[in-house]
């Protein structure tokens, strides 16, 4: 219980520094905007079947036209509303980014703590594995898997990205754990008779969690980008509209030089959303104890 | 004319709670060929004085007040570029070797040579290598170690190399900030002997900064005792060590363990309060004083000169 208070105490004082940081403020503002978009996508069915991002075709248009009063951002090549697709895409981006980052952070943190604390052969094996996975280009792997196993659904994609993206986290957490392990307060706890499990979860975890959260923001960014690239190349989940897929439609239907109203919004959204997560991460990075960062490298 | 005169130097740090004074109204002078020691516990502002003299205060620190006059030149008033010219050439600094004070990827000899090439443009490479050999010989590093990297040196040798670097341009003033801290007693003893030898050899002014009064006692003729940014007592070595007036000086001396005094150590009053009191409301040392007066909690004691060289910041008249 008092651990909780300690955490909150630190959290609130860090929050004050964080919110003074212009990067953090701008990033948070942008993030809230995208979150609003994602929430708004749940209300699309209220507008009627014509505004369904996947199946809703405007019978009057049935082709790509520019912005109008009934379609604020215009329509795509079969007459679907671009704004609705954009809102739906925000939802998918958040799901993909957060879910996959969360999984890779959990894997990375556990592997990093175990590897660093256990040392020896466990450490060597886990870190060699991490090295191997780390140098693999995730998009290329996903392409090969998509080729072999056919269309991947969105949860499969989330899971695969997470599986390919934990090593960087594990490395940072491991080096942090290694330096913590040498700290006398861990040794003091061992001398006091504490078990390894207690030391890992009571002493090491609270000290590495801030770093794990920091890395989560970066993982969100890379997950969103990889999913969007995959969709752009036509290997995304065909049942879900994502921003990458919107770009794929612009490109493959040959509208990229004719329909800037269609080309611009999804690209800007992807870039801005990843930018805002990144800005939040950078701001957190500056708030966290600088010593944490140094040892993390 | 003194080599260095510091008048009413006040340095403040910007912090979350406003401006805090690390050095508060400090004045002293140094003649050529003499040495002055600053002694005090961690956080008393002694390192800040050294950095102010070097013009190397961190970005969040500012000189609020005062003058630093070296050879008729007021260092507070000169430009950054002029100050850079002075650093290394007229004022050199000996850092603590336990710090990462040498660049790990540059050979030690090159790091010393750099000092010379920066300040003396008309020297040939041969002259430089001769000069470096002389310097390394002076501080006692074997000549075949000149081209090693710092990680190949022991702690004592790094300290010697740093001293060699400081001497490279024959500076007028050398500031030594905890030069022997973190060295073993035996090595510390060797380094101190080296420094005393150099003091006798050269006509340089020394400013010595240390938390260890025994070190200061060995190398300095004049001593300033500091507490929380202010000098509380200053005098010659004999005055401060033989006839200390300020209760804090007496406490520092009385609690310092040597092999000879283990039986008559005075244990200072244990103060378990959180944080320091500061000088705004009375004497900062009142909570630590074994016999404070009533006014100590209300008024900040002024400076009293007991002799031309001996001064103290305390209300108490008697020495006992």
């Amino acid at each position, binding site marked *: 219980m008092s651990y909780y208070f300690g955490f909150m105490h630190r959290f609130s004082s860090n929050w004050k520094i964080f919110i003074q940081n212009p990067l953090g403020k701008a990033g948070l503002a942008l993030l809230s905007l995208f979150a609003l978009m994602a929430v708004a996508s749940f209300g699309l069915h209220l507008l009627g079947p014509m505004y369904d991002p996947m199946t809703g075709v405007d019978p009057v248009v049935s082709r790509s036209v520019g912005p109008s009063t009934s379609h604020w951002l215009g329509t795509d090549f079969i007459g679907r509303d671009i704004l609705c697709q954009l809102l739906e895409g925000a939802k998918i981006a958040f799901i993909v980014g957060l879910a996959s980052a969360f999984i890779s952070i959990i894997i990375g943190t556990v592997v990093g703590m175990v590897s660093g604390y256990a040392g020896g052969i466990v450490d060597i094996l886990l870190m*060699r594995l991490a*090295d*191997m996975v*780390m*140098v*693999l*280009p*995730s*998009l*290329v792997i996903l*392409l*090969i898997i998509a*080729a*072999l*196993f056919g269309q991947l659904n969105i949860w499969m994609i989330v899971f695969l990205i997470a599986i390919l993206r934990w090593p*960087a986290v594990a490395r940072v957490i491991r080096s942090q754990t290694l330096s913590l392990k040498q700290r006398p307060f861990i040794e003091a706890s061992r001398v006091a008779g504490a078990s390894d499990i207690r030391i890992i979860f009571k002493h090491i975890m609270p000290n590495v969690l801030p770093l794990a959260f920091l890395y989560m923001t970066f993982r969100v*960014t*890379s997950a969103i*980008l*990889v999913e*969007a*690239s995959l969709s*752009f*190349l036509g290997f995304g989940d065909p049942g879900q509209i994502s921003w*990458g897929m919107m*770009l794929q439609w612009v*490109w493959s239907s040959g509208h*990229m030089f004719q329909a800037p109203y269609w*080309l611009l919004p999804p*690209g800007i959204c*992807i*870039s801005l959303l*990843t930018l805002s997560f*990144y*800005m939040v991460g*950078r701001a957190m990075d500056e708030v966290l104890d600088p010593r944490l*960062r*140094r040892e993390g*490298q | 004319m003194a080599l260095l005169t510091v008048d009413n130097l006040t340095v403040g740090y910007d912090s979350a709670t406003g401006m805090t004074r690390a050095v508060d109204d400090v004045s002293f002078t140094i003649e050529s060929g003499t040495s002055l020691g600053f002694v005090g516990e961690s956080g008393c502002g002694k390192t800040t004085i050294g950095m102010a003299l*070097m013009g*190397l205060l961190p970005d969040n620190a500012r000189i609020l007040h005062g003058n630093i006059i070296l050879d008729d030149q007021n260092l507070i008033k000169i430009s950054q570029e002029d100050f*850079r*010219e002075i*650093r*290394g*050439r007229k004022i050199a*600094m000996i*850092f603590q070797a336990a710090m*990462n004070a040498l660049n*790990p*990827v*540059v050979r030690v000899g090159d790091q010393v040579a*750099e*000092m010379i090439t*920066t*300040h003396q443009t008309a020297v040939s490479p041969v002259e430089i290598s001769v000069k470096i050999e002389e310097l390394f010989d002076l501080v006692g590093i074997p000549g075949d170690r000149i081209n090693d*990297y710092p*990680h190949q040196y022991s702690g004592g040798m790094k300290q010697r190399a*740093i001293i060699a*670097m400081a001497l490279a341009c024959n500076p007028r003033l050398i500031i030594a900030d905890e030069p022997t801290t973190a060295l073993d007693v035996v090595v510390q003893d060797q380094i101190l002997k080296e420094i005393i030898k150099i003091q006798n050899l050269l006509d340089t002014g020394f400013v010595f900064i240390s938390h260890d009064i025994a070190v200061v006692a060995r190398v300095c003729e004049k001593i300033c005792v500091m507490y929380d940014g202010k000098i509380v007592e200053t005098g010659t070595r004999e005055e401060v060590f033989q006839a200390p007036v300020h209760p804090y000086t007496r406490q520092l001396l009385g609690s310092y363990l040597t092999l000879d005094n283990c039986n008559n150590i005075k244990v200072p009053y244990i103060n378990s309060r959180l944080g320091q009191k500061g000088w705004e409301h009375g004497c900062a040392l009142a909570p630590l004083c074994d016999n404070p007066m009533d006014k100590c909690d209300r008024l900040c004691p002024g400076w009293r000169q007991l002799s031309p060289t001996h001064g103290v910041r305390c209300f108490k008249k008697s020495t006992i």
Partner: protein
Amino acid sequence: MNRIVFISKKAVELFILFFLILTVLFFLFRLAPGDPVTRMVDPMLTPEDAAHIIEQMGLDKPLTTQYMIYVKNFFTGNFGFSFHYGEPVARVIMARLPCTLLLFTTSTLLAALAGVFLGKISAWKKGSRMDGVLSISALVCHTLFVPWFALMMLWMLGFQVGWFPLGGIISPELWIEDAPFGLKVLDVIHHMILPLLTLFIIHVGSYLLLMRSSMLSVLKEDYILTARAKGLTDRVIRNRHAAKNAALPVVTSVGLSLAFSINGGALTEQIFTWPGIGRELIFAVSNNDYPLAQGCFLLIAAVVLSANFIVDLLYAWLDPRIHY
């Protein structure tokens, strides 16, 4: 002696890693739903040709034998036949490799040099307006969505302004005609500028950010204070004492960020129809040309691993403190 031990250790590590990747790929191809034979043998072949390939790859033999043949084939450079081209995969990808290496190494080197230089300036002037502009632009570059950005470049500089061709590596008329060599080179450069610029802008940001943070932590080191106390000029402190040390960690991260760069490289090749390995891989995957996909993938893995090896060697050579 130590250096040789270190290098051979790294080389052995590299070899084992590559072997693992090779093995995993083998099992992925056999485990995937569907008949492995149809995946490795072009459905358009005559039965006799098909039987020959099945024989050659041992597809009718037990898994262990297949694996042995697979490994042997790999080391003798036999990657099978591409369905689409009807040519040996090795010949197809070897024709693509120079294009990729040309684009990729040029953009990586340029971006690394510029990024390190700008990162150094940015960290040195921390808090200034220039630092603000540089680091915000670096952030934007780093988080740009590659295909979209490439499309924008194509649309604006290729389509709207018409300064650059819309794709390919060389104009067809120059390729066919026996044009003078110099003209060919100029034409390739003309074709390369857009993809190069795209990759450069995407990568320069991350190198800038890396160098900046590395430099900032070096500037807090005590030996920088020593250098200032020596009265060295700002330029000497910045270049000789800070930047040299700060660039070391950047070197390592070049290797680690290669995976990231390859994703971007493949997408860029795809959009600018640059005839490289990445584009070939995407093409192979889209057209179910499995032998070609496998070949491209293994080549990319080999490139990534050897680049990491080079980075390790470089680091060992640069840092005198390294323990072999």
